């Protein structure tokens, strides 16, 4: 047993875990920040919705789909110049966050759009009949009613981001994924691979159960 884990450097793993958490936290923050309004916009301009705008929706939808269909690893490479422009580096946690955000935002926005579409039309109508402005409809009816769906969307996005951070590790972002590739894969240190994968699994499990709990807490149906 001891022999199997001979390559484990607790400090190194701790540092890598921290990097992963920073990447996750930072990218999740910005993904929510940009993705939520984008999702609302997609919803509002969609077919038969409050602000149905055929052309605008089609363009927005296309951009979202292009970004979603691009493999993340390619997105990272393509984005290097922009990343450097924003953060000054394409390496480390800071260098990983812009491509993570660009990769996850369209994904999250689509999930938000779907969650908003699940809200009963009758509720929008009832709120309109009260004399609400569009802004009031969004903040007082749509978002509260879609809250469980949006929390579930956040959970899925966070978990997707965990796997993206592991991929980002391959191109110099650091974190657990980087460790798994450099030691576990390239140097055949299986024990490092096992530990990092286990840590990633624990992280995913934690995110999922936290998300599920919140969904249950906010579901009144």
């Amino acid at each position: 047993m001891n022999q199997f884990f001979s390559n484990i450097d607790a400090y190194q793993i701790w540092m890598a875990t921290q990097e992963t958490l920073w990447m996750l936290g930072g990218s999740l923050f910005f993904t929510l920040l940009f993705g939520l309004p984008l999702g609302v916009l997609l919803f509002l301009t969609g077919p038969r919705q409050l602000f149905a705008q055929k052309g605008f929706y089609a363009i927005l939808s296309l951009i979202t789909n292009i970004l979603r269909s691009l493999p993340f690893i390619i997105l990272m490479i393509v984005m290097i110049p922009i990343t450097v422009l924003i953060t000054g580096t394409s390496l480390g946690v800071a260098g990983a966050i812009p491509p993570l955000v660009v990769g996850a935002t369209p994904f999250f926005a689509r999930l938000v759009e779907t969650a908003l579409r699940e809200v009963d039309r009758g509720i929008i109508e009832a709120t309109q009949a009260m004399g609400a402005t569009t802004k009031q409809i969004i903040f007082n009816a749509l978002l509260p009613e879609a809250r469980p769906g949006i929390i579930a969307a956040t959970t899925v996005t966070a978990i997707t981001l965990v796997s993206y951070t592991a991929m980002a590790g391959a191109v110099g972002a650091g974190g657990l994924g980087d460790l798994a590739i450099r030691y576990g894969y390239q140097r055949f240190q299986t024990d490092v691979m096992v530990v990092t994968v286990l840590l990633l699994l624990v992280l995913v499990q934690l995110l999922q159960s936290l998300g599920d709990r919140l969904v249950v807490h906010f579901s009144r149906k």
Partner: protein
Amino acid sequence: MIEFQQVYKTYAAKGREIQALKPIDLEIPAGRIYGLIGHSGAGKSTLLRLINRLEDPGGGRIKVAGQDVTQLNASELRAFRRQVGMIFQHFNLLSSQTVADNVALPLKLAGEFSRQQIRDKVQRLLQRVGLEDQANKYPAQLSGGQKQRVGIARALATDPKILLCDEATSALDPQTTAQVLDLLNEINRELGLTLVLITHEMDVIRRICDQVAVLDAGELVEQGPVSEVFLHPQHPTTQRFVQEAEQMNEEKLHEDFDRVEGRILRLTFKGETTYEPLLAEVARQTGVDFTLLAGRIDRIRDLPYGQLTVAFKGGDLEAARQRLQDAGVHLEELR
């Protein structure tokens, strides 16, 4: 008063035009309960939703209290909508909010009330609909009837002058329906609200409406006081609705006709004459014999009425007719 002048509505669906409402003229008097009845797809909801402009008319004028609501700009429309409450078949409550928060929502949106004012108002409204002890529950924890009461409390929050009810009782069982209708009746009486109520059940119309309009395939085919339309329906669609409500079976009734002799009349009593021993008196005085074939004694809103199908034999039928007519009974010859 709500006035429709040549109002119509078409929907474009898949390149085809659906004429949901043909040009309609309608006057809904203030302070009354006005019923709209029609089969599914007749255009009832469309007509109702034109009143608070959830739909825009294809053309024509809609006036509410003298104001042309088709001319309102966005902010005027929002202010106008606050004077028009609406309740729905499926309640449309926010599932994420408590009963109290649902009722508070229109007040919050209006943005003119303090928290304390809202809290007091919500409490009064919940008391009004008999739900003061459910304030902190979520809609999912309530029965259908309770949900509709919340819907009513919410619709009344901004002290509207008009209440629009789109199939408000269609999702409820008969007993709960009766309770909700009683509540709507009280609200009309106590607050003087104008109610416009959609239904596909004539019984709902009979119980609480003063006036009724019958819609058939986007056309207004009959309208008038419920006592007129219900007791003397003219249009086939109206007749069918009434027969359904009275659980009358015309065919069976006509079979029964073959088993009796003499003339067959339908007598309609309205108001106090319903309770007078008129038929027996007339029979005694004129020597006619009578057989009851079908009948019902009930109320239209508060008006007692009776409608009897009677076969008369022997005696002086002409005199009997004269006496019944003098007493205010409406006669219709069936055979």
